[in-house]
């Protein structure tokens, strides 16, 4: 099931200042598509994801724009309507599985909750379904392990349990907010395989948030590169990595540690994140960009197509002044 985002803005109105976490994001997730959102910490990825399900407390937040899912604007529909969508048609997976589970409740009760609440399934039936799903996520002896508490599980096992909890209602759409960040590399790969398997099985669309470019490159069909609450570059994964069209994306790619030349082992992007309490006048990355000039700092940037299925917000790239 597709979602169409149109100029989504999430701002936090505090006593003395306004924090702009998401500054007008538009993109479409097509049916059965995995779309990646990559960017540094603080770029607004998670806030965007949480905004889509109205999971940001309002006030202090104000969310405007549109996110259309099955003719419903997720951002402005009333509480009972968004509740009927959450966990039923759009599920969410969170970053840290240990804190995302309730430590006082058995896993079984937590996993079957969406099914019991949304579909009015009997507890016995729901449990059978949950055990089956847990087994599919690769947890052996699931009918026994489902009766334990979160602290008795490892991080990888909990993330599998969280996937089972999110998918138990067979949602059409999944939002995965850095689902592999808290896991070690081998577990990461297993979890990604698992998500891919379920995506094909349930024909889901996925918004996949990560700061790991490597994971985004292998897992996503298309990629949005996010910075300071805006999307600086978007396109088909291969295109974005092969013909990078924004200096920020280039800088991010350069930061991925490489085993080939460990001499200049750890690269970083100098400078700090754009101050989210400041209004945007030009390109938000201009202050840290090696290619920026006065024009970059003063001209508002918008995403424009640079190749079929590939858009960039960099004015200098668009004008052909620089190439990366």
């Amino acid at each position: 099931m597709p979602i169409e985002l149109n100029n989504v803005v999430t701002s936090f109105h505090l006593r003395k200042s306004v924090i702009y976490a998401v500054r007008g994001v538009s993109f479409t997730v097509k049916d059965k598509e995995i779309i990646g959102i990559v960017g540094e910490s603080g770029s607004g990825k998670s806030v965007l994801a949480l905004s889509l399900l109205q999971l940001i407390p309002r006030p202090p937040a104000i969310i405007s724009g549109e996110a259309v899912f099955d003719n419903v604007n997720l951002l402005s529909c009333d509480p009972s309507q968004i509740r009927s969508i959450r966990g039923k048609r759009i599920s969410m997976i969170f970053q840290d599985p240990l804190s995302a589970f309730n430590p006082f409740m058995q896993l079984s009760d937590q996993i079957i909750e969406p099914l019991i609440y949304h579909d009015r399934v009997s507890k016995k039936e729901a449990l059978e379904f949950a055990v089956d799903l847990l087994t599919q996520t690769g947890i052996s002896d699931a009918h026994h392990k489902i009766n334990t508490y979160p602290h008795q599980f490892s991080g990888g096992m909990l993330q599998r349990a969280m996937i089972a909890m999110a998918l138990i209602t067979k949602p059409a759409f999944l939002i995965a907010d850095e689902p592999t960040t808290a896991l070690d590399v081998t577990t990461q790969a297993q979890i990604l395989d698992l998500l891919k398997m379920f995506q094909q099985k349930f024909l889901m669309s996925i918004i996949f948030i990560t700061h790991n470019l490597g994971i985004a490159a292998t897992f996503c069909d298309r990629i949005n590169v996010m910075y300071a609450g805006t999307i600086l570059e978007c396109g088909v994964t291969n295109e974005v990595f092969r013909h990078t069209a924004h200096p920020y994306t280039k800088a991010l790619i350069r930061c991925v540690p490489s085993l080939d030349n460990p001499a200049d082992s750890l690269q970083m992007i100098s400078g700090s994140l754009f101050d989210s309490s400041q209004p945007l006048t030009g390109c938000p990355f201009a202050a840290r960009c090696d290619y920026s000039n006065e024009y970059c700092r003063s001209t508002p940037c918008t995403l424009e197509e640079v190749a079929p299925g590939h858009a960039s917000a960099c004015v200098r790239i668009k004008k052909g002044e620089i190439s990366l």
Partner: protein
Amino acid sequence: MVRFILKRIFFETIPSLIVIATITFFLIRLAPGGPFSTEKSISPEVLTQLNAFYGLDKHLFTQYLTYMARIITFDFGPSFKYPGRTVTELIAESFPVSLELGVYALCIAIVSGILAGLIAASKPSSLRDYLTMSISMGGICIPTFVMGPLLVLLFSLILGWFPVSGWNTFSNRILPSITLGMVYIAYIARLTRGGLLDTMVQDYIRTARAKGLPERLILIRHALRGALLPVLSFLGPAAAGLITGSFVVETIFSIPGLGRFFVAAAFNRDYTMIMGTVVFYAFIMISFNTIVDVLTALVNPRLRSSLR
């Protein structure tokens, strides 16, 4: 769990009780005066005889040893002020009254306290939050010796719903239970609210919301359990204090409970009665804290292994 409780009794309860009994025994002997110093016309001969009867003429340390040997068999000795009656008898007679009153007060406090906390926390910084919390703040601030007579004035004298004092019928129990429970309602309400506000910002609450559960279900099913942990640890000493009686409330409502003995025994230098009440109170206090430890571990699965 049985092993845990046995371990608690042998390594914690009994040693604590011995230390408490010892300290109390010597402290009350240090206090000026004695059990017979208030009697006006008492001849030296009678005094010597009285001292000999109660064993007060022996060396203090010998007295201590005989006393400690005796309380092992739950015999707290004869009272100095209630001739012909033993301390054990007096406690056995009055404790059930205090226990009953305390249990009512505790029930009132727990039910209304948690309810008030839930109401306040369901919408923080709203009118209902401020209202519930200021009422409960008032409950903490108004002392029982003011609250008791106020309730009597309103419900007994003006409205005539309940009797003024006494302990014969069920309607006798209502006003003292409310008076006694009032302060605790307020504490429990504030602890519940605080606990709920802490848990409502946890990640697992966000997960529950992402599953599409309604707020009320999230509050009760997901947040309350963790939020009640601070309430539970408060309830241990609170319950022990409630069921052992309150001097003020028992005096206001003329209730034949245990509370008055705590004060009377100290004033009268009724040595055996002081020892009896102190050791009894300590025993109840330690037991309730053990119960709370067990309950806490049952509520919090991460602590369950500590019960082994």
